[in-house]
């Protein structure tokens, strides 16, 4: 096995399972991530995203299952994987009482980079942190902290980035800059696995996977995932949508009713049955019905509702 095996697959795992104190957090999870792609990892809180990421980079040992990460066995070669993987934790995990430059130099030295000081300096420039290099990491704003964390995990030139909810709690502008940076890195050949709750971020990924209650429910490109869901959605606008939502919820084949701003999304997998159920309201005054495509969010919420019944 070789870290640069050119099979075009960065992550290839089968049947990963992990339990904590008798509770299964990840169940029989298999996934493949292509080299150079941005792979979005979605799912509700506590669905096992973080646990999966930690198993991939050797921070957790799977109870069962096997696979490779960059061609290295995730069970036996954790040390080698660590050299080639940048892992950005969910919680800010750089040293708050070290300055920006000191944090970066620490990482550079740990990875044995020859010119730690120079590498840190270059990264500071790349991150746009010039002028802040002597500031303590703990005193940076949320957006800067997150940029610094990304800088720290890309500093040793990894082949794979594992980003665990990197943009949680970051403002939209910083979020957009962050994603531009991720795309730039992927264009350079880096593989990125990123977990997120944001739908707009999911749509920026080349491929996505949806995980809930430890089960991988669906994966593919955004279009594939939407198509696979076989969901039909009607968008309703008009008066008293709250009342309508209450009336529609629980009707046969109405799988999901969700307000979206000033409109209401009514979705179901069985088109005929859905249309039969909504028929009594279709011609009601003041309501405007339009058949549309489900959004990614519709698909996920529907998946989540369904998986709740299956696994909980």
């Amino acid at each position, binding site marked *: 096995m070789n870290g640069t095996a050119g099979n075009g697959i960065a992550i290839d795992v089968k049947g990963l399972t992990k339990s904590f104190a008798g509770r299964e957090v990840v169940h029989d999870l298999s996934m493949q991530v292509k080299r150079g792609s941005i792979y979005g990892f979605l799912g509700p809180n506590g669905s096992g995203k973080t646990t999966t990421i930690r198993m991939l980079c050797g*921070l*957790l040992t799977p109870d069962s299952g096997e696979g490779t990460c960059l061609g290295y066995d995730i069970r036996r070669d*954790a040390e080698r994987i660590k050299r080639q993987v940048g*892992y950005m*934790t969910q919680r800010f995990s750089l040293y708050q009482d070290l300055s920006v430059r000191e944090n970066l130099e620490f990482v550079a030295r*740990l990875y044995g980079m020859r010119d730690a000081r120079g590498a840190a300096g270059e990264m500071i420039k790349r991150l746009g942190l010039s002028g802040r290099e002597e500031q303590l990491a703990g005193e940076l704003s949320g957006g800067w902290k997150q940029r610094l964390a990304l800088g720290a*995990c890309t500093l040793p030139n990894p082949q794979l980035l594992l980003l665990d909810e990197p943009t949680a709690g970051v403002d939209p502008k910083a979020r957009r800059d962050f994603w531009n940076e991720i795309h730039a890195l992927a264009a350079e050949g880096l593989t990125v696995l990123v977990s997120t709750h944001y739908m707009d971020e999911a749509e920026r990924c080349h491929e996505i996977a949806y995980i809930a209650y430890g089960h991988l429910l669906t994966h593919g490109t955004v279009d594939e995932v939407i198509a696979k869901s076989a969901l039909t959605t009607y968008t309703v606008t008009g008066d008293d949508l709250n009342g309508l939502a209450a009336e529609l919820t629980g009707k046969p084949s109405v799988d999901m009713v969700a307000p979206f701003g000033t409109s209401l999304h009514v979705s179901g997998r069985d088109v005929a049955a859905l249309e039969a159920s909504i028929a009594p309201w279709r011609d009601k005054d003041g309501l405007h019905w339009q058949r549309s495509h489900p959004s990614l969010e519709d698909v996920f919420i529907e998946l989540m509702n369904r998986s709740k019944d299956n696994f909980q």
Partner: protein
Amino acid sequence: MSATDLSDHGHDIRERFGFWRRSYAMVVKEFIQLRRDRVSFAMIVMIPVMQLLLFGYAINTTPHNLPSAVLLQEDSDLARSVLKALENTAYFRFTREVHDVDEFDNLLKSGKVLFGVEIPRGFERAVRRGDKPALLVAADATDPVAASAALGSLGMVVQTALQHDLYIGDPPEMPFEIRAHARYNPAASSRLNIVPGLVGTILTMTMLIFTALSVTREVERGTMESLLSMPIKPVEVMFGKIIPYVLVGFIQAFLILSIGVLLFGVPVLGSLTLLALLSTLFITTNLAIGYTFSTIVQNQLQAMQMSMMFFLPSILLSGFMFPFAGMPVWAQYLGEGLPLTHYVRIVRAIMLKGATVQNLQYDTLALAALMLVAMVIAVTRFRRTLD
């Protein structure tokens, strides 16, 4: 007015007892957290119990059966009677017989015996001739507490020895004298004894805490997760965390010793280099033990408590406060497992007795062994994953 305006009477009461309600809420929360922290809870029980048991059973300020050496240059009835009489005081226990004065001095210097008795050649004949010969009892007086009671008992010994033996006619006066020689600290100044011991005690306390907090701090601040995801090995983490504090400890030791020498007039008879080297060993041993604690405990409070658990017996059982030889055997065995015990011997021996490395082999090896054991435990205990 706002309270009475509200029709809700409950709200009114809540405002009035606000102080107590809020304090109560805090009390309930603290109790819940305390109950969750099992280790802290155990320490709350164990620290006082341990302290009481140690004080109660192990500590003895008028120690008996102190290890003594005898240099027997004449094997006579009178000599044996004198030794018997010495043992009968219950202060002396002859553990070693030596054959020349050098050996005698080395045993005293290394602290393996506290007393040395020399019976000179031709002793019995000199007594019979009425020459009033002198019998030398040399004492390691670095610890005045340990030595004083035993030295005080010497006056009776001549009488006792004569009762058992001798019909040299009636002894109108002393047929021989016992000359006590309190070595190393003839003025019985407790300061000379305490200052060197304090060096070790202070170092134990500060060094333990430095490293005991080090790993838990990384865990609590969340930096451990990213550290573990990087290619660093447990041994490397350990050395990285210990080495800076060796320097800190060294500065601290230098400071305490300087004050001891300059302000309290404690001499440094032995080699300063040897003292510096062995102090570094002792500092490293403590840092390794503290680091081991930090790989075992779950939070910083537990780390502090565990350090206390270690520090207390160190003070009580190391011979720093109370004579080591006066403790029961089980307590002496416990004491041998504490680095401070060995360092207190080392530092007193070098400063007050001018001991050399040959005198201190055993304690040096013991310190090194303790350090290695602690490091091996730490490296194996260090969790490389978050499992």
